[in-house]
């Protein structure tokens, strides 16, 4: 069978779902048999696996900074179909407390994250033995500093990954730390913010260690 013929098999179309594991049993068996003689699919399977892994590594837990915007409940914006009761809703704020999501806990601090109604806070970061956590650190730099100095500062923090700059000029770093309390995190943040040429540092979320990283 030629490579062109192989890639037109209906089973070739199912390859991404074989990789993500959502095919039913019969489809999986057919795909396994197909892979035995389809070189194009065998090669693409490796690529799709790498893409899947890359996408998984990019996943970062980010929790909300703000409660439901009041505007969402602006009665003027609510245009339900005829017959639905209208309700005047104003000034809703979510109940204060912990917004626990399976893999992440938001850690808010500083004026940038504690505007009116910022209600997702935790009193302490989780303590899990001696585990380290991947913390998401946002950094802003003094505008006049050089790119080299900025890069050296980022590198010195030994991040797991770096993204940025975003359109506001800030960088997102994932840093692995053993910190297990808000005090430890705050101390780390202060040390980072004291560095030149950092102008502002925020820790906004954590991501629990990912197995196999």
């Amino acid at each position: 069978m030629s490579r062109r013929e192989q890639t037109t098999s209906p089973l070739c179309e199912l390859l991404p779902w074989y990789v993500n594991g959502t095919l039913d049993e019969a489809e999986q068996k057919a795909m396994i048999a197909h892979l035995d003689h389809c070189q194009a699919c065998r090669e693409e399977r490796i690529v799709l696996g790498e893409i899947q892994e890359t996408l998984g590594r990019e996943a970062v837990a980010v929790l909300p900074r703000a409660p439901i915007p009041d505007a969402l409940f602006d009665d003027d914006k609510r245009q339900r179909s005829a017959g639905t009761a209208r309700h005047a809703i104003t000034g809703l704020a979510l109940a204060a407390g912990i917004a626990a999501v399976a893999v992440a806990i938001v850690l808010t601090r500083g004026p940038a994250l504690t505007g009116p109604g910022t209600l997702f806070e935790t009193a302490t970061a989780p303590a899990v033995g001696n585990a380290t956590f991947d913390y998401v650190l946002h950094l802003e730099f003094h505008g006049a500093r050089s790119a080299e100095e900025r890069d050296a500062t980022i590198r010195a923090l030994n991040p797991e990954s770096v993204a940025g700059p975003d359109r506001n000029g800030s960088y997102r770093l994932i840093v692995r730390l053993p910190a297990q309390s808000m005090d430890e995190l705050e101390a780390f943040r202060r040390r980072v913010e004291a560095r030149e040429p950092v102008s502002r540092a925020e820790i906004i979320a954590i991501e629990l260690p990912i197995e196999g990283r």
Partner: protein
Amino acid sequence: MQQSAGKHLLERSSDAKEQALLRAIARGSRDAMAELYRNYYPRLFRFLHRLSHDYSLTEELVNDVMLVVWQSADKFQGASKVSTWILGIAYRQGLKKLSKRRLPLAQDSGRIETPVDERQTVERRDLIVKALSRLTPNHRLMIEFVLYLGLSYREVADVVGCPVNTAKTRVHHARKQLREILTTLGYRNEAGQ
């Protein structure tokens, strides 16, 4: 095969409970809306931020999605899971906004020094990230749906609002574009192919 990293988007909550929440939202319950919002904001934020890499835009997008949920809860017919319905809204809202702008490069790990034995892997990942950033928003979403969120082809069809065969074709086109971009970038997989 491995469990997709984002699969939890569709699995975290009980659908029956969420359907009850939507019914309450349709009756105008702000408490129900608050609960749904609290459940979905992080998940939607995480997913949409992967596409925009822009916090302000992502916040805006998530609120756009939740506004549609608030306005349209009474239109939910129960034909799909609530999470699929909400992801469908996110798909349409995201596509509308992201189509107007080029998706930015997500990551630049080349900036950081890496041990030699990991360099090739890091370089391949960088090429993949670059290639993903060059996909059209619609193609990027197809790849994210399958390889990040781990949706089945039926779920992709539900989210996109198209027949199953169309969903397969869209993903096929996304794969094709991704392969072409990867080839242009000089990507070779770990087997050197």
